[in-house]
């Protein structure tokens, strides 16, 4: 059965759920939907029906920019020679509370 262009436009949305208030949102998976309202409802039914989420984000998959694997080196190299980014680099005088 040939599909019309109309029907083919059920685009992909990525779903992010927040497990409990205050926690970060995590990627849960995706759903297909024609608009944001349906995407939100579908996401809730698919990824949150067991009470796993208190909050949901849905984002059209096309809106997401991802790092490319070839970026891995320049983007994410932890740079173990950059100790100045870490608290342990700094010496606090004895007996003085910093916080």
């Amino acid at each position, binding site marked *: 059965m040939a599909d019309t262009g109309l029907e083919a436009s059920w685009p992909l949305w990525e779903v992010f759920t927040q497990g409990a208030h205050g926690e970060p949102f995590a990627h849960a998976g995706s759903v*297909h939907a024609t608009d944001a*309202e*349906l995407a939100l409802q*579908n996401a809730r*039914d698919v990824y949150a029906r067991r009470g796993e989420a208190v909050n949901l984000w849905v984002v059209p998959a096309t809106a997401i920019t991802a790092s490319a694997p070839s970026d891995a080196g320049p983007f994410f190299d932890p740079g173990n020679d950059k100790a100045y980014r870490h608290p342990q680099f700094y010496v606090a005088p004895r007996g003085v509370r910093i916080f």
Partner: protein
Amino acid sequence: MSDDTVVSNDATPTVFNPAGVRVPIIQNPLFEYLLRLGDDRLILGHRMSEWCGHGPILEEDIALSNIALDLIGHASSMLALAGTVEGQGRTEDALAYFREGVAFRNALIVELPNGDFAFTMMRQFLFDAYSVLLWDALSQAADARVAALAAKSLKEDKYHLRHSSEWVVRLGDGTDESHGRAQQALDALWRYTGELFDRDGVDDAVAVQGIVVDHAALYARWQGIVADVLRRATLVMPTDGAMRRGGRAGRHTEHLGHLLSVMQIVARSHPGAAW
């Protein structure tokens, strides 16, 4: 839309009401009332469950199943309470699986076959709008058990209403085909909506027990919700004509018998068995 002449079985004991009309004596009005609440949702939930595996898209299959589960869950709670109130040891299963069709107290609208997706969604929407308003009213009931069940069911029904109304809008304001199907569904269902707002002796009797629902107010608010969604859906609200009724007194359509044949067959084939 409600009148004082109530259809009754010939064997039911009767009495004259203050208006001089012969009406049945209602033995246990709270039991009758809970049956109505439970049967509406049992039958509607059963109809919804018929869509499992046959929905128009995978995501919607999951959504429809959710609604079916919620409704059957509500029904189970209502019927369990009904059995307790009746005081004859009937569980929710005994009530669901071992009553004849004429003993069911659901409104006619919920027993109609699903038809196409437009008919299913339109029926769901018209019922959801009523159910949300009803549960809202019943959350104030003097009977704490009823109030608690109402409050819980209200939460879930609000989500159903959101779902069904958004679909009515998308079908009404979608393609020419979907618009035509939605309007046709609305026109066919309208004559079944009046029954939802009927008031009879059972309602009067439970009002005395603190379960008070202002049917006229409910109806007005329901019309408001429906008008708003139909406007967004570019659909025409049908004019009121003769309303089909009888479900609250066990006078059902021919559809209910077939539905119950399927629903009850396994249980009835093994009377007394546990599952």
